[in-house]
């Protein structure tokens, strides 16, 4: 318990939805609807799910870009919503982010020196030579030549831009980096470079990652623990080995089966029909029941929301059909 760096408890975010400027608004969009997990020091926790499952909204709340409707986020045991002034600055220093698209996350009019140097100037008051030296150091850390500090983003390829974004995130020696689909915009050969870099940095600097991804192969490669979200809810959470070796929730199984395996001898698994349900009017009971392959016409799945239970040690899921192991 002691090394819980970040703890998220019953987190929810409802957006005002529907309607137009005449009506007072339709039903709320329940983007995130009660999600709990924690990130330990030095580990990678992955949040997995399809578009609209709320994984990015969770990340935004952790980065204080959205205010939670309900629930709490604590960092090193302290409630983040209570941070003001210096405490808030300190939190923003320790939690950084790398986003999906390195084309829109870097200001095209700023030199690399200023992009990476800005947080150093603002938080640590570095100037002149010291600033340049620190930026050069950071560029070397991410495998770029320090001379490129005077370049502008357009002079770099996608992979190099993502390296710059990582250098910026590292500038203030953070403890947690939120990685929101960090390689999905990159070419295959460049993905490996960035993933290896992230793994090396984590080992060398003792970083924690919150990895947001839809790619289950990358998640298996990168993470220590995995949480699966579906329409605003967490449906399964386990250590990596447990998750990939002993998947419990039918949605997790469907996700795993849907990934085309790069081996012609492994046929494609049976996947599920239908589409991700809408967070505006989520299905009653278990939100997955409309697509669930093991859902039977029991009123249970349709009417009663399944409890979030620990089935095995450190392996939680929300499904009526999964029986807890006999202890």
């Amino acid at each position, binding site marked *: 318990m002691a090394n819980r760096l970040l703890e998220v408890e019953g987190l929810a975010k409802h957006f005002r939805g529907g309607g137009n400027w005449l009506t007072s608004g339709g039903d709320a969009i329940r983007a995130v609807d009660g999600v709990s997990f924690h990130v330990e020091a030095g580990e990678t926790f992955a949040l997995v799910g*399809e*578009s609209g499952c709320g994984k990015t909204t969770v990340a935004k709340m952790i980065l204080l870009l959205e205010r939670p409707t309900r629930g709490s986020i604590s960092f090193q045991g302290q409630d983040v919503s209570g941070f003001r002034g210096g405490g808030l600055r300190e939190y923003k220093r320790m939690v950084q982010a790398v986003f999906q698209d390195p084309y829109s996350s870097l200001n095209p009019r700023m030199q690399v020196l200023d992009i990476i140097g800005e947080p150093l100037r603002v938080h640590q008051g570095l100037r002149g030579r010291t600033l340049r030296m620190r930026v050069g150091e950071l560029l070397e850390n991410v495998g770029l030549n320090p001379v490129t500090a005077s370049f502008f983003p357009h002079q770099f*390829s996608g*992979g*190099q831009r993502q390296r710059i974004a990582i250098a910026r995130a590292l500038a203030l020696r953070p403890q947690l980096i939120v990685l929101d689909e960090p390689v999905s915009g990159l*070419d*295959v*050969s*460049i*993905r*490996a*470079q960035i*993933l*290896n870099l992230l*793994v090396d940095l984590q080992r060398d600097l003792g970083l924690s990652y919150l990895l947001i991804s*839809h790619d*289950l*192969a*990358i998640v*298996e*490669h*990168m993470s220590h623990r995995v949480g699966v979200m579906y329409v605003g809810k967490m449906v399964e959470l386990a250590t990596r080995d447990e998750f*990939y070796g002993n998947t419990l929730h039918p949605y997790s199984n*469907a*996700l*795993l*089966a*849907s*990934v*085309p*395996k*790069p*081996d*012609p*001898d*492994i*046929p*494609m698994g049976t*996947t*599920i*029909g239908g*589409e*991700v349900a809408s967070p505006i009017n989520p299905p009653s009971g278990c939100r997955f029941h409309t697509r669930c392959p093991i859902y039977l016409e029991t009123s249970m799945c349709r009417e009663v929301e399944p409890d979030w239970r620990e089935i095995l040690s450190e392996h939680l899921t929300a499904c009526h059909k999964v029986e807890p192991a006999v202890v």
Partner: protein
Amino acid sequence: MVNQNIEDDILLRVEGLKTYFFQRNAVLKAVDGVSFTVAQGEAVGLVGESGSGKTMTCLSLMRLVPQPGARIVEGEIWFKDENLLDITEHEMRAYRGHRMAIIMQDPQTSLNPVYSIGEQVAEPVRLHLKERGQQAMNRVLDALRAVRIPRPEQRLVQYPHQFSGGMRQRVVAAMGLTTQPELLIADEPTTSLDVTIQAQFLRLIRELQQDSGTSVIWVTHDLGIVAQMCDRVNVMYAGRIVESGRVRQIYKEPQHPYTRALLDSVPLMGARRDKLYQIDGQPPDLRSIPQGCPFWPRCPEAMDKCKEQYPPRTSLGGQDFVHCWLTEEGR
């Protein structure tokens, strides 16, 4: 699924295709001497990173290269017994959308927002099959049913914004399939789809392919899709096919260092590695393709010879081949 006896039923044969972009002070060789065949009912993958020329190859096949700017400068594209580069634009229209169709990456931009789905799917039917009224309508309904769109009669009158991404991609597929083309070109049609929706779409295309014997060219960078969907694969690098072979063969024994590196650099589910194999450097920049084999600056096994001369085609039996000095010298 694999068609062994392919010599006699070749649908498409591309020979020495070159498509260049002409810029003010540079010529970008987007496609630089590509040759391959597609047999009837066969699914062929074109794999490569951005800038490898896979999309430009497909646009060349459809004779849809961006004008002005790009031009097919050389080569032959034989569709059965007709060279598509010899016929007039008017004659080409009989192929495009009729005998060969393309599904693009982004269903958002391949549908017109101001026409209903029914009108758009009916367009190739009216144009190519000259069908009207109830007859055309039935064909459209059949196409929408074939791509498993629920309640097609009601969906017909709706507009693209009323469809989800996965449904829109199905509509685009339906447009491509109404005329029952002999060749379907799928240019990364699933990149914008979620995994479960992608799996549905892949299954659908495979079923349609089996039912109607359509040949498919899959353009993708996803080696999983190639493994699941294709009989053969052509690996492209810097505008050329560097290796071509049957999928099983290539995944088991890749010959070209680039193919090997591609296969080793993707994380595989169930096969954990401490470190991913890393291809250093950047994908080739078409403005400055290195002399010799364009892969040599990134190749761990590059020799002096590689920097001087592009390796010749080394046959690996049947239609399989590779362009690499290592294999050429080794035999």
